[in-house]
């Protein structure tokens, strides 16, 4: 691929331009286009070994401890949906990114970008929701920022949260550690968040019993970490769904994966909505679920520990890491045949997280 370099005022900036001249919605969807943007623009621009790992959080050694640091932005539309709102999502989302690194969350920052004309009452509801969520997790929001942009420049509210946590001794989770034979564990039914959002979307309304599964996973993770050296990595399958999370780990670990369709829990309502809309639940976003790659010797114990916890009651072992076809994820269908689970190009459902 020939590289074109961005230039400004005749000074050449050594940042290569990704193919295509405009940002598309697909670039934010967590699928293939997002991955390309990372590889082609952001990584070359910000080269360092921590970033290269591309985990949900950065783990930085400081004064003998290991600090986890993460950031996430929330642009979900609509702002309020069954099971949550942009405020609670923003808190839980960042707490979960920290938790995926095994970190106990310590504190968060919250930065608001508000649209001129936003009703104060809406902002109050969202802020209150952030407060409730932070209290539920036991973290403090220690710093923040507010900006207001002209009407039309953002959709009501955008929120960025960044978080710091501490990774306990002996916990070393990273998505490049999956090994053949490892078991793939999933904490519960998939697709609830994405469908809950879709149900509110213009042109696609339906009455649902589907609520977003948005929830903080740090306590579930803490329970699982009792088996720490046996847990290779964890990932929360948000945008791009279970497929993206598995593909990312398979890619980073250069291992293959075989998922079992019959083992993947799915609620009847999500099943119905996906059938109606022609969606594959493997690609639909989740906000209160995690996958864990676990050494086979402790997989059953980890599963049992998960099921003791409210957020892991329906946990299942859904597959195995295999030694063939590195980087590729497969699904054994309920009929016993095999298909690949490809990375989504970009999704057609904007603003679900």
């Amino acid at each position: 691929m020939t590289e074109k370099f961005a230039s400004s005022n005749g000074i050449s900036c050594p940042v290569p331009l990704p193919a295509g001249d405009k940002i598309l919605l697909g670039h934010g969807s967590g699928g293939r286009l997002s991955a390309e943007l990372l590889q082609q623009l952001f990584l070359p621009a910000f080269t360092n070994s921590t970033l290269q790992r591309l985990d949900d959080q950065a783990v930085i050694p400081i004064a003998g401890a290991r600090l986890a640091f993460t950031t996430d932005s929330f642009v979900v539309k609509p702002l309020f949906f069954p099971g949550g709102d942009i405020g609670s999502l923003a808190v839980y989302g960042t707490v979960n990114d920290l938790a995926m690194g095994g970190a106990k969350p310590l504190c968060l920052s919250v930065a608001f970008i508000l649209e001129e004309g936003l009703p104060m009452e809406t902002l109050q509801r969202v802020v209150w929701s952030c407060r409730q969520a932070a209290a539920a997790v036991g973290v403090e929001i220690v710093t923040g920022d507010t900006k207001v942009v002209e009407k039309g420049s953002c959709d009501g509210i955008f929120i960025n949260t960044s978080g710091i946590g501490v990774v306990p001794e002996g916990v070393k989770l990273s998505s490049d550690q999956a090994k053949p034979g490892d078991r793939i564990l999933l904490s519960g039914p998939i697709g609830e968040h994405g469908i809950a959002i879709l149900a509110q979307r213009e042109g696609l309304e339906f009455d649902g019993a589907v609520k977003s599964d948005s929830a903080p996973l740090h306590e579930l993770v803490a329970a699982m970490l009792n088996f720490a050296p046996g847990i290779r990595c964890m990932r929360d399958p948000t945008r791009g769904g279970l497929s993206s999370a598995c593909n990312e780990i398979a890619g980073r670990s250069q291992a293959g994966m075989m998922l079992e369709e019959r083992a993947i829990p799915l609620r009847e309502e999500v099943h119905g909505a996906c059938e109606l809309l022609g969606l594959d639940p493997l690609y639909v976003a989740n906000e209160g679920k995690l996958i864990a790659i676990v050494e086979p010797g402790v997989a059953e114990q980890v599963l049992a520990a998960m099921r003791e916890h409210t957020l892991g009651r329906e946990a299942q072992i859904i597959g195995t890491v295999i030694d063939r076809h590195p980087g590729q994820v497969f699904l054994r269908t309920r009929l016993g045949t095999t298909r690949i689970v490809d990375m989504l190009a970009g999704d057609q459902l904007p603003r679900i997280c």
Partner: protein
Amino acid sequence: MKYLDEYRDERIVHSLVARIRAIAKRPWVLMEICGGQTHTIMRYGLDELLAGKVELVHGPGCPVCVTPVETIDKAIELALRPDTVLVSYGDMLRVPGSHTDLFHAKANGADVRVVYSPMDALKIARANPEKSVIFLAIGFETTAPANAMTAWQAKREGLTNFFLLVSHVLVPPAIQLLLRSRENRVQGFIAPGHVCTVVGYRQYEQLTADFRVPIVVGGFEPVDILEAILMLVTQLEEGAAKVENQYVRSVSQAGNMPAQEMMERVFEVSDQKWRGIGMIPQSGLRLRPEFAAHDAGRLSSIAAMCVEEPAECISAQVLQGLKKPTECPAFGKRCTPEKPLGAPMVSPEGACAAYFTYRRHGVVTFHD
């Protein structure tokens, strides 16, 4: 889900496969016409289960794939006009026009919206009286009653700001074209179950009589498709050539009369260009003159464009079942769902997209 999940039953699937394999004394070549059926076959690996006994060739039953490039270009041109909302079914958004697609048009500022149902497009028109709301009305006969009702409602309500850009295709003329081709290898057809739900299957009786090929109307779940294949293979082994109906829970010989009546009121048969295939006479539908006021095709100066497909794209051969997607040199390399050269790679029901999504470079078999 009732009437759905039980047609994915593993035991029944395997017993049907065993029966097909037992009955077929020689290999047969069958075509499933509808893209939805292709999708099921690929997603569940039904072709793998029948390997050596039945070869499944994929047909042109993907309305997204066969929508002419000119229609996409017109839709994009209209979408970019001020005070215009272009409303479409989701799968049309990434289909390449001659230069770009609706998704990119949206990135360039066009107001493009996705709906699940054309009635939702009417809602947008009612809510935005100052804008022209144009609905990209594509599909086979399955979708024609829905699009027809939408046009009918718009006229009844006097929604002067609502228009339809129509590109409808009919299945039987395409099958006839395939059967007439000297390169045709297909010995039996699975007819599209939802098209036949609407229009019945009388039209296929003429085809079986003229060409002596068995046709079975099939549903969309693994059990449906396999049962239809069993019925076809049974006929072929007996030397029979008649129309049968597997999808009895939804299809009757006469089809859905109220739906056909509405189609008749709103549409008339016309010549239609099929992307990748060319002009097929009397194979499309257009709005009747009484609906001219809602016909986006008549909206000022959309010049007739002469469009050429990228030379590498072999969608013509794929849509006619002459080549498999994996036999295309560009497949998976220069042509992928993100950067498609042709429509069958973009539509979720296109054969190329199905292969790419579920197979990539070939059949994957695992023996543990």
